[in-house]
């Protein structure tokens, strides 16, 4: 697909005399055109058209066949898909057919006119409207002198008969692009009344594969294009000899199935890895950090020394003042005080005390605070031990309070101690029980755990979900359109609504009682009742215990949390960009044998043989003769395993030990064109064609009667 070579224009169109027919194998997948009598078609391309808009000029252009994807960037393909003129195996869109024929004749080198007889292939029993429109197109638009239509499978059969692959009487099984045919041949002539068609073909296989893969890998849907699916089909698909047995292999036999898996790695670039910093880098960083902290330390030290100096200065000044005051007279003292800015000697003293304290602090000396706290703890309740007689009424009150406080704290302490003792006792008992019968103990523990966790979960669920577990609700917390509110939210909405519409209903007595205000608590968004605290703590205890003694134990909440977590944080690896094709390898081609798999209610190709033989009103001996020359042709017959599977399939519909011989066509794809080219080269070909004059004379009736004679 990546290397699409566009065909060159042939230069030797003028060399051929006007009597040489142009042979066109107009297949639903591929269009092949060439000259009668030659061994190979001059060109073949995919029978599709797309009409995108050219980006820079804005004109709509027609592009026929496969294209180089890198060149498609110049075109705007949003409104044009790749289109085929075929529906199943019948041409029905003649506008597209015209583009394709244009391209075909253009590449073949036509200059001034087409001017050659045309032999074109068609499907079995092509509806006459399709034939009529095709002839109209060829006569009126291209001025073709005469036309003949022939069945592609018949040409393929005749060609292989010439090669000696099959007899004059036989069957052709053809698996094509849109359909499968079985055509019986008697004396080298197809018996159309006995042929049969199922509308399943290579197209359906590719489409099935594409759909399955894109459903399996929704993230890579864009990468799974039609062309890629076609490529995968051609490369990896095969037909299972026994479909059920093959399924069993994939279901039960892991190793063999792994061998049969194929992987397609999508282009994937690993994200840039963060390299651990080198030694040098680390050292550099550490040095930088050290430098910065050193600077900070220096700054702090400087500041401290500054402060100390300042304090010392202040202190010496204050001491000086004090000394002066001590020595000075009353009069002088006020002057000194006024100068110093302090009001009294007392004040200066306290300032000195403060300064010395802060100096000590600044110098980093401890100031004996520890003892003080101890002391305060000791006499927290100083009045308790003092006799009542010595106390004032206020102190008595205080004493009462202190006694109360003391008893409660002591009670709390005692209770705590008791609880711890009980806990220890229980532990001991449990240990004993465990030692006696570890199995039973574990069993009990587990039972208790599951009971508790069940209860807990249920409560949680009720809270979240309102008790309605209705299958696949999304677990996301947000309440989107159409999603149900949970029970708590519902209750809240109900309260709000009733509060809103309560107005005007009699007297407004809200707030008369204290309980009224509780409603706001309920309305607030986060009202979690903690009534189940006990259960929760018990659950936690048992969980820890189980984790301790049971190696296989996995906490439920953990298990729940673990599973959805990883994909979120796990970085994408090449594996995520790998598309595995296992069962699809034989599941997709199986639709040829079981069209019911894709909803087509028709017989598969093996059964078609029996239907065709039944339709053929002949003796059993004739049927036996036909079955000894079965030719398998068409592009979809190229799957490995096709012939053995067909053989075993057909054998089921034939009498016991009836002879059966299947042959694959020499080239299932090109044989039809080659047969047609050989047919057109024969001297009697001219009698098989019809001209514009014939068409004008007979009209549409001509097409009902037009059946060429293949054995010339």
């Amino acid at each position, binding site marked *: 697909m990546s290397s699409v070579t566009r065909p060159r224009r042939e230069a030797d169109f003028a060399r051929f005399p006007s009597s040489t027919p142009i042979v066109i194998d107009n297949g639903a997948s591929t269009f092949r055109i060439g000259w009668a009598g030659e061994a190979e078609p001059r060109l073949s391309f995919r029978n599709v058209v797309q009409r995108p808009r050219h980006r820079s000029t804005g004109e709509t252009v027609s*592009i026929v066949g496969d294209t180089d994807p890198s060149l498609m960037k110049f075109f705007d393909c949003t409104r044009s898909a790749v289109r085929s003129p075929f529906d199943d195996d019948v041409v029905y869109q003649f506008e597209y057919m015209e583009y394709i024929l244009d391209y075909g004749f*253009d590449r073949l080198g036509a200059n001034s006119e087409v001017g050659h007889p045309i032999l074109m292939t068609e499907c079995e029993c*092509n509806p006459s*409207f399709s034939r009529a429109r095709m002839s109209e197109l060829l006569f009126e638009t291209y*001025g073709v002198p005469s036309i003949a239509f022939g069945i592609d499978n018949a040409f393929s059969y005749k060609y292989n008969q010439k090669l000696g692959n099959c007899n004059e009487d036989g069957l052709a099984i053809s698996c094509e692009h849109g359909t499968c045919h079985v055509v019986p041949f008697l004396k080298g002539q197809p018996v159309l009344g006995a042929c049969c068609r199922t509308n399943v073909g290579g197209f359906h296989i590719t489409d099935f594969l594409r759909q399955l893969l894109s459903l399996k890998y929704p993230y890579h849907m864009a990468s799974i294009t039609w062309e890629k699916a076609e490529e995968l089909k051609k490369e990896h698909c095969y037909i299972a000899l026994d479909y059920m047995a093959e399924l069993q292999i994939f279901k039960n036999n892991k190793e063999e199935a792994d061998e049969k898996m194929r992987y397609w790695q999508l282009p994937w670039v690993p994200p840039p890895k963060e390299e651990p910093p080198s030694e040098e880098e680390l050292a550099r960083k550490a040095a930088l950090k050290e430098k910065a902290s050193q600077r900070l330390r220096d700054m702090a030290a400087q500041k401290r020394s500054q402060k100390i100096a300042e304090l010392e200065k202040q202190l010496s000044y204050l001491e000086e003042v004090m000394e002066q005051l001590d020595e000075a007279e009353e009069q002088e003292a006020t002057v000194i005080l006024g100068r110093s800015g302090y009001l009294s000697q007392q004040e200066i003293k306290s300032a000195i005390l403060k300064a010395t304290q802060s100096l000590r602090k600044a110098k980093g000396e401890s100031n004996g605070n520890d003892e003080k706290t101890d002391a305060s703890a000791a006499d927290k309740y100083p009045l308790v031990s003092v006799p009542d007689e010595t106390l004032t009424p206020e102190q008595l009150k205080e004493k009462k309070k202190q006694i109360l406080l003391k008893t409660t704290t002591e009670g709390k302490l005692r209770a705590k101690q008791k609880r711890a003792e009980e806990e220890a006792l229980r532990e001991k008992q449990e240990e004993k029980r465990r030692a006696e019968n570890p199995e039973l103990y574990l069993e009990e523990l587990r039972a208790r755990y599951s009971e508790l966790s069940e209860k807990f979960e249920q409560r949680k669920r009720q809270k979240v979900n309102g008790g309605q577990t209705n*299958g*696949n609700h999304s677990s996301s917390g947000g309440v989107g359109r159409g999603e149900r509110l949970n029970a708590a939210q519902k209750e809240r909405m109900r309260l709000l609504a009733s509060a809103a519409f309560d107005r005007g209903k009699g007297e407004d007595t809200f707030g008369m009682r204290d309980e009224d205000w509780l409603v706001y608590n309920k309305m607030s968004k986060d009202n979690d009742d903690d009534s189940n605290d006990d259960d929760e703590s018990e659950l936690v205890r048992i969980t820890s215990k189980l984790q301790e003694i049971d190696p296989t134990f996995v906490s439920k909440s953990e298990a729940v949390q673990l599973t959805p977590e990883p994909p979120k944080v796990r970085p994408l690896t090449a594996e995520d960009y790998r598309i595995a094709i296992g069962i699809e390898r034989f599941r997709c081609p199986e639709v040829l044998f079981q069209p019911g798999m894709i909803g087509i*209610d028709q*017989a598969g190709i093996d059964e078609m043989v029996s239907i065709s033989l039944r339709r053929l009103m002949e003796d059993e001996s004739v049927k036996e003769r036909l079955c000894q020359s079965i030719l398998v042709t068409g592009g979809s017959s190229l799957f490995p395993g096709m012939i053995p599977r067909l053989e075993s399939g057909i054998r089921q519909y034939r009498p016991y030990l009836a002879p059966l011989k299947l042959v694959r066509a020499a080239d299932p794809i090109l044989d039809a064109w080659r047969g047609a080219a050989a047919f057109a080269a024969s001297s009697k070909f001219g009698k098989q064609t019809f001209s514009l004059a014939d068409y004008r004379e007979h009209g549409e009736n001509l097409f009902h009667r037009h059946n060429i004679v293949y054995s010339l």
Partner: protein
Amino acid sequence: MESEVVRTEMVLAPTLPFKKMQTADKYPKGQSRGRQWKHLRHLLQSADASSMPPDRPNYMNIQSPPSIYPPKRYCDLTGFEAPYVDPRTKLRYADPEVFKQIRMLPDEYVQRYLALRNAAVILR
């Protein structure tokens, strides 16, 4: 037009000398091109009866009938033989593992899986 496009001769020329009637004349711009091509099924239905006499082989009557064997049921997701059908999504499934997967599938995917075998619910 870009040189690569011209060099590869990708685009079909609007007028070709060998044609008696050019596409542009046949389908003038702005006019309806009769794009509404009927599908083959409709064409066959509308074709007049005389063009398809029942006694002669024609496109319709060479079709294969349904198989004489009952169709096998396969799991829509895995392709294994499917003994079960999910009553809600109508998807067939092979084992409980797949069933879990099915219940997780968004509705769009369920419909796409059903469409694979022509069983999707089509709302009109």
